[in-house]
């Protein structure tokens, strides 16, 4: 991905067009923090610009993003929370513009979202990463490269992850009684 000045604009544009949204979504799901996700996405692409050519750009980008997540979570949890609060205060108006839907989230949806997030927390970090990557369209080989697994292990991991998350959600939903019933 090291770019010569002549082709510079074209390639960075292509990288962005292809991979920026998936990377942001992946980071957002992992972190549950849209702004932090944007930041780490930027960092990911900054590193991409500094790096030489790779066999598979998608796998490489997701590997970098995953490593950034790990580093970030380990180092700066407290600081992050503080900054999140600060940022929310400062950019309230801007974040209103960002969302394409007004804040009409029903209590039912909130409850389901909470259960879904909890169910996702119940699976191991690597399983969750594989799941989110498959959601963003990475194939088995790319997930394998991004996470340092064999292709067969990716299959095992995804199968296990999907079953676990669905079963966890099921358990949570049944524990919360009939209140979760869809209208």
């Amino acid at each position, binding site marked *: 991905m090291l770019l010569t000045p002549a082709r510079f604009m074209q390639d960075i544009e292509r990288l962005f*067009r292809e991979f*920026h949204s998936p990377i942001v979504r992946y980071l957002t799901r992992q972190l549950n923090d849209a702004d932090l996700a944007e930041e780490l996405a*930027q960092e990911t692409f900054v590193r991409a610009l500094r790096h030489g050519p790779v066999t598979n750009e998608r796998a*490489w980008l997701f590997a970098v993003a*995953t*490593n950034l997540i790990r580093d970030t979570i380990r180092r700066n949890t407290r600081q992050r929370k503080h900054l999140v609060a600060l940022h929310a205060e400062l950019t309230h108006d801007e974040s209103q513009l*960002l969302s394409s839907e007004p804040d009409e989230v029903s209590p039912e949806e909130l409850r389901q979202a909470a259960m879904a997030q909890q169910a996702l927390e119940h699976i191991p970090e690597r399983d969750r990463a594989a799941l989110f990557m498959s959601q963003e369209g990475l194939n088995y080989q790319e997930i394998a*490269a991004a996470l340092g697994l064999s292709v067969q292990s990716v299959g095992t991991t995804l199968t296990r992850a999907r079953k676990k998350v669905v079963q966890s959600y099921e358990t949570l939903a049944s524990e919360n009684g009939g209140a*979760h019933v*869809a209208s």
Partner: protein
Amino acid sequence: MSLRDDDAMNTFDSTPFRLEWTQDGHVTEESTYAWLDGALADADSDLVESHVQICFVCSAAVAEARGFIAASVRIMNAADLSPRNVVPHIDVVRTAAKIVALADQGNISTMRTRNNVSSTLLTPVLHRWYQRPAFSAAATLLLLVGGAYYVTTRLPMSAPGHISVATSRTPNTVAPTVKERMRDSVQRFTPPVSSSTSPLIAGKTAATKTRMSERVVQRRKLAVSTQIPSSVPAPLPLGSESLPVVVVAAPATASERKVMSSTLATIGGVADEASLRTITGSIRERTTSKPLEAVHISVPGTTLGAMTDAAGTFTLSNVPAEARSLLVRRLGYEVANVSLDTVRGVTASVNVSLTAAFIQLNGVTVASAATPAPRKEKQTSCFTVSSEGVGQYAPLVRGIQWETDGSGTYQATLQGWPQSNDLRRATFIANEAGELRGAVTARGNRLDLEIKPQGDTWIVTLREYRGTNVRSENVVFKRVAQGCQ
């Protein structure tokens, strides 16, 4: 396990997921998911597709896997409170320039410069975005795709009663990409919402149930008819030289046969044990009593044989006195074993009635005459077979045991597989024409079988899959006798 940034460049492995089968000849769970995810090689993918079409167990497993995949996608989408998968338009050029500037600066700590970096990046962009009356084409497309995907996957939670279940897999002429297949599997299996289970999970069980009920509907309800031996004829007077002996060749139990034999009159004159004799007779069809042409009569243990003519009559010469039975066979009819124990004399005559026998869609003829009334119980019949044809596996088969519960599924256990005395079971499903398709595993390789019954033979086409190579065999199994060793 973390991966250094550089490692992704060196360790990229492009081999596909390796398809694996269980001991019973089914697709493993991981392989099922891999197939749905489009991770199998093309040849393996086609293999699974054709197997799933004929295997109940695996098609149910596929339905369940699809349910889990779809439910996990919905869970991931539900976890997003706001539609974060709809990303606002980013001015690519400006953002790229900013990124490059940051990269040139060298050391970036995104945490410390968080407010600065994100504000400078986003604020000018927001103004532009906010000011534009219309989105750019790229952003519109992104929103549409993201929004459509979002709406589609969220729909079951907010609109109960929305049912969209794909009933069949259309054949692929172009291999779909992973994305397409995943999107396909999610959208095709948006199941109805059940009020008794959580909305996200209802999909799983409902999809499975729908799949299974479709299968039940598709199964043919087979009437089972079992053969009842007709009444035993009155004993004939002693002293006759040639006595027409009517033997009902329907599947009778051993004890019934004994009863019939004992009531048969003996023929006057005991043949010299060392001499040969001639046996004549006629063969008729049981229900119509019409003479049957081209019936083959043979003497087991010898090479003697004869065929009936247009009148249904035959002549067997030079039959040794110690010959105990005759084997009476014809395509489309039950094989008959005629005892010669009570047939004495230098010349003897035998009359045989044959019963039509073939596996057909509307009725199943089963060897064991358990009860006269048709019942959808498990019926088993076993046949000793001989095989004609060149092949590696088929000639080793010496017996086939069939089991059916009358629902259109047949379990065949093939005796004599190579290298072991294991009985390999295959599940067969009958189609409209009464042809059976099934699969079995031998030596770790997949064998697909197509069986066309024709009277007392089965024409078998066998395909063995070794990796991406396919080897075919064409064999004819002839039913030699009922019952297996």
